[in-house]
């Protein structure tokens, strides 16, 4: 909430005031009505009642109108806050991507992040605001009751406090209890359902789908029993609030009736005393639900805070060097010496002691088994990660440059390049905004997608523009894995960077297709520097030379004894 600056805070404050006033109108309506009826029974001249009659009418209208205004003001504020939060989270994520947080490792985490941002908007509307108006109403009710009869005020205060504390506490205990008591069954059932769905065809083919289904249904039955077993606990919070209300009403009469009999309390006010608790409890009885919204929103907020407080993996220098690694134009000279790179949170480098010199316009393959730090090298070259040792572009350390400047010269086509849920053309134009249709088609051809694109264009009546308008679906689901990878490759080629890092460009391709694609891509990259990361040898002529990358040697701490002995000085 502290990140939401003034205009929004003001609107939220106004919403809270309007909400409290609406509840107070309800309280006033009931109190004045009770007074009106009691006083009228004494049959005074009707003139004496005019003030009460007028206020009853005003309060009756006020409550509805105030509540309507409160809803509009607070929703508007919540929308604005959400807008601001979304942008703030986005800006932070931009600095963190892709090394800083594990969000990009799974779709589940991404979905949760998006939900968390939306969830915090709920906190104010359904958590804080009801709490604020409940407290305001309760305070005014206690003051009013105390003014009429101090003992009744004390009873009401105690009952409200009990309901306000015990209700939400019991409600959140019972929901935690329910989650805990069924966690094992829910986890089991999720896995069983997943297995049934994943293996459906295999099971049906073997005639054993019923067996797997029966096992899943057994777990479901266990879950049903667990749910039924804990059902009793669900209503406790609600019951606690209603019990406190019972105590408050009974207590008001129990203190009020003797006071009337003793003449210390005007009998006209006894009805007010009995009815004030009803109005005072209305917002308090809603607190268990509000507390649950707050708890859920807090969890969301905590997870967002974790992200916003993560330090930037590679902060840009305060005064970056002017990026001009090759004053003559064209690709820069790249010199890597004893390069060591550690991912944030990892306890050992993923790449260490790596040396490489690349002449402008050279094409180099970096080959190594999985775990040798190939993708780490790519991330370091993009300025995504901090490093130790030396990584120079045109004689200047990469760390001295602004990351965005680096990425205007270095491009990366990674294994997990994202294909956006939009058209083929828009996906490609990410790389170059003003690219013409012809340029897009040429890039597709370079990436070995000529036949594929001709098929698309053919399907849309032979028009190139129509083919480019093809939508690629969520995460590129409308195309195959191999096509997705080549679309990403085409995009990188279109970007026309002086240095291009290709991370396993042949990952989802069979040997023949891979060779064809690598050859056309190599031709398109003539004159540029290319670093091709691969785990198998590339076809002849694609690169000028191949360097091998071995997994980093374990640090001495983790190394077996024998290797420690090797490191010890000899002789």
């Amino acid at each position, binding site marked *: 909430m502290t990140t939401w600056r003034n205009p929004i805070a003001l609107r939220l404050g106004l919403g809270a005031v309007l909400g409290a006033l609406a509840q107070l109108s309800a309280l006033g*309506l009931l109190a004045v009505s009770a007074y009106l*009826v009691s006083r009228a029974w004494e049959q005074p001249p009707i003139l004496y*009642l005019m003030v009460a009659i007028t206020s*009853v009418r005003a309060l*009756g209208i006020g409550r*509805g109108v105030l509540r*309507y205004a409160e*809803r*509009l003001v607070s*929703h508007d504020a919540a*929308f604005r806050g959400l*807008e601001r939060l979304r942008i703030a989270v*986005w800006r932070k*994520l*931009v600095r963190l*991507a892709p090394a800083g947080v594990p969000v990009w490792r799974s779709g*589940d985490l991404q*979905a949760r992040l998006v939900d968390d941002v939306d969830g915090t908007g709920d906190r104010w*509307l359904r958590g804080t605001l009801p709490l604020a108006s409940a407290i305001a109403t309760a305070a005014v009710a206690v003051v009013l009751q105390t003014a009429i009869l101090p003992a009744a005020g004390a009873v009401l205060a105690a009952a409200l406090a009990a309901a306000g504390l015990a209700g939400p506490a019991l409600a959140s205990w019972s929901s935690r209890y329910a989650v805990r008591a069924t966690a094992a069954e*829910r986890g089991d*059932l*999720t*896995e*069983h*359902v*997943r*297995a049934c*769905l*994943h*293996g459906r065809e*295999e099971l049906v*083919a*073997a*005639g*054993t789908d*019923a067996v*797997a289904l029966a096992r899943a249904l057994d777990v479901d039955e266990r*879950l*049903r029993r667990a749910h039924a077993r*804990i059902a009793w*606990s669900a*209503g406790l919070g*609600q*019951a*606690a609030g209603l*019990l406190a209300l019972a105590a408050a009403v009974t207590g008001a*009469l129990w203190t009020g*009736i003797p006071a009337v009999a003793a003449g210390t309390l005007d*009998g006209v006010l006894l009805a007010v005393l009995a009815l004030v608790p009803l109005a005072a409890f209305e917002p308090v009885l809603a607190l268990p639900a509000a507390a649950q919204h707050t708890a859920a929103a807090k969890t969301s907020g905590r997870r967002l805070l974790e992200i916003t407080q993560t330090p930037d993996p590679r902060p840009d220098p305060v005064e970056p060097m002017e990026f001009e690694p090759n004053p003559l134009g064209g690709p820069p000279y790249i010199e890597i010496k004893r390069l060591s790179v550690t991912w944030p949170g990892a306890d050992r480098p993923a790449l260490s002691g790596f040396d490489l010199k690349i002449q402008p316009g050279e094409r180099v393959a970096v080959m190594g088994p999985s775990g040798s730090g190939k993708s780490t090298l790519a991330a370091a070259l993009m300025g995504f990660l901090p490093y130790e040792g030396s990584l120079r572009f045109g004689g200047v350390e990469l760390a001295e440059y602004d990351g965005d400047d680096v*990425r205007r010269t270095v491009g990366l086509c990674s294994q997990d390049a*994202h294909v956006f*849920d939009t058209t083929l053309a828009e996906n490609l134009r*990410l*790389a170059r905004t003003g690219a013409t249709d012809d340029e897009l088609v040429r890039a597709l051809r370079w990436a070995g997608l000529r036949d*594929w694109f001709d*098929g*698309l264009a053919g399907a849309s009546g032979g028009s190139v523009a129509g083919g480019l308008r093809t939508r690629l679906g969520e995460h590129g689901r409308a195309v195959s894995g191999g096509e997705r990878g080549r679309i990403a490759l085409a995009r990188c080629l279109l970007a026309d960077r002086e240095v291009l890092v290709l991370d396993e460009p042949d990952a989802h*391709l*069979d040997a023949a*297709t891979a060779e064809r694609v690598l050859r056309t891509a190599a031709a398109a990259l003539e004159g540029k520097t290319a670093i091709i990361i691969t785990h198998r040898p590339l076809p002849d002529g694609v690169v000028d030379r191949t360097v091998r990358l071995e997994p980093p040697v374990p640090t001495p701490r983790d190394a077996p004894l024998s290797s420690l002995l090797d490191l010890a000085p000899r002789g």
Partner: protein
Amino acid sequence: MTQLAPRPAALDRRLLHRARGASVYIGVCAGLGLAQTACVVAGAWLTASLVAGAFAGGRDLADLGPQLTALAAVLAARALLASVQEAAANRAAAGVKSGLRRQALEHLMRLPSGTRGTGETANLLVRGVDALDAYFARYLPQLVLAVLVPAAVIAVMLAAYPPAALIVLATLPLIPLFGVLIGRHTKARAERQWASTAALAHHFADLVAGLPTLKAFGRADRQAGAIRVTTGEYRRRSMSLLRVAFCSALVLELAASLSVAVVAVTVGVQLVHGGLAGEAGLRTALLVLILAPEAYLPLRNAGAHYHASAEGLAAADKVFAILAETPEPGAAPAPDAEPADAPALAAAPHIAPPLQRAPTIMFRRTVFAYPGRDPLPELSLTVPAAQTTVLTARSGAGKSTLLAALLGFRRPRSGSIAFDGADLAGLDLEAVRRSIAWLPQQPVLIDGTVAENVRLAVPHDASDPAVAKAIAAAHAPDGRRRVAANGAGLSAGEAARVGLARLLLRADLLDTPVLLLDEPTAHLDADTEHAVLESLAPYREGRTVLIASHRAAVRAIADREVDW
């Protein structure tokens, strides 16, 4: 945020009809609702008569004690009933949720695979459906009370002081009336808005997923502006909709508070003029004053719980969408299938026995197509009987599709598939499946031991020695080892060998004349690959074997290689 989704009216009814135990619950709900209504009326009457007794009757606690005790008891009973109500609701919800999950899962096993995410669907069935608790425990009971309480209040008022009853009777219908009017006015806009909420969340999720890519192209910072514009536009449209939508709540609140005000004033004026004299008069006046707001309370509560119940209903809606999907052709009928399905069954080909000997399999000019994709090229291919054929075509050429087609899971768009000249489309699918042992690329693993997993090869119980033999031949892990349903505890290579053991067991016990293997050695090192292929050799004798693989060692055992 505020739920703008329109709720399909039929959903609630479907939910209550399909779910077993729901009708009993509605009965319990009504019974408890009646008891709570009685408490509300009794509480109001006792409060009114206590105040009137002390103020107008001049009596002290000594006289009024029993009434005060009764009031405490009635109010406490109301609290207890609310708690019992919620417990009963959660018990009932447990049964309804389980029923929905069962139906959905049984139906899902008959729907074509690959059209939905398995993780997402599992989450929907377990966590998503759980959210129905709020609907059953909070929303439904308030709806029941929203019928019972106003009726009781009006009845009591009619007996005590008819003008007050008329006021409630005049205002109460305004609420649903305005609700319907406003709902009709905003419906189309709300639907559009709901679609744009979903689109907005989807767009943001897509951007987050692709952020590393955007950053690589230097486009990430610029997106912040785009997010601001779309979100701001969304807020303006939402607010203009909410200004109208909140009017129904405004009518409800106004009706509730104005009717209290009008009752108070009417009764007050009546009292001043001596219309309701004496202790009884005051008691009546207070009774109607206390009861008036109670008539509107359940409706207001139901509105407040609407939001909490929306999540569960959205999940239920998705489950119903699954239940409405048409099963895969050839799928077994549902256990509770309508009798109307019977003629279709009778028209199906008669049950043929499994294929007796190794068949020749022929693909004649078959074309396979996936929705939204280019069809795969036309293919004609003969797999000779009792020989081992290895498919070496490039990735994406449709090797797995061919294997799945033989099992009837993919239908060619054109062309035909024949076993010994008999068209697959005319054969009994179950019999064909009984004649085939198939090892898919990623064999399924269920929670249990390796042996239990291997037993999934055949519908009946396999003997221990047979299972042990298959495990040994496939070089699979120890039969007693535990496997979690997500495959935890096994490496990819071990999982592949569990799948292979399954294939061998099925070949042994059912003597299937056809073996289909999809990348059987993809995750194995050269030594294991060799050993596994060695074990496979005796099983290949006299069987038609079709293997999809690029591996040199696999190609070495082929009688024939096919590429296209």
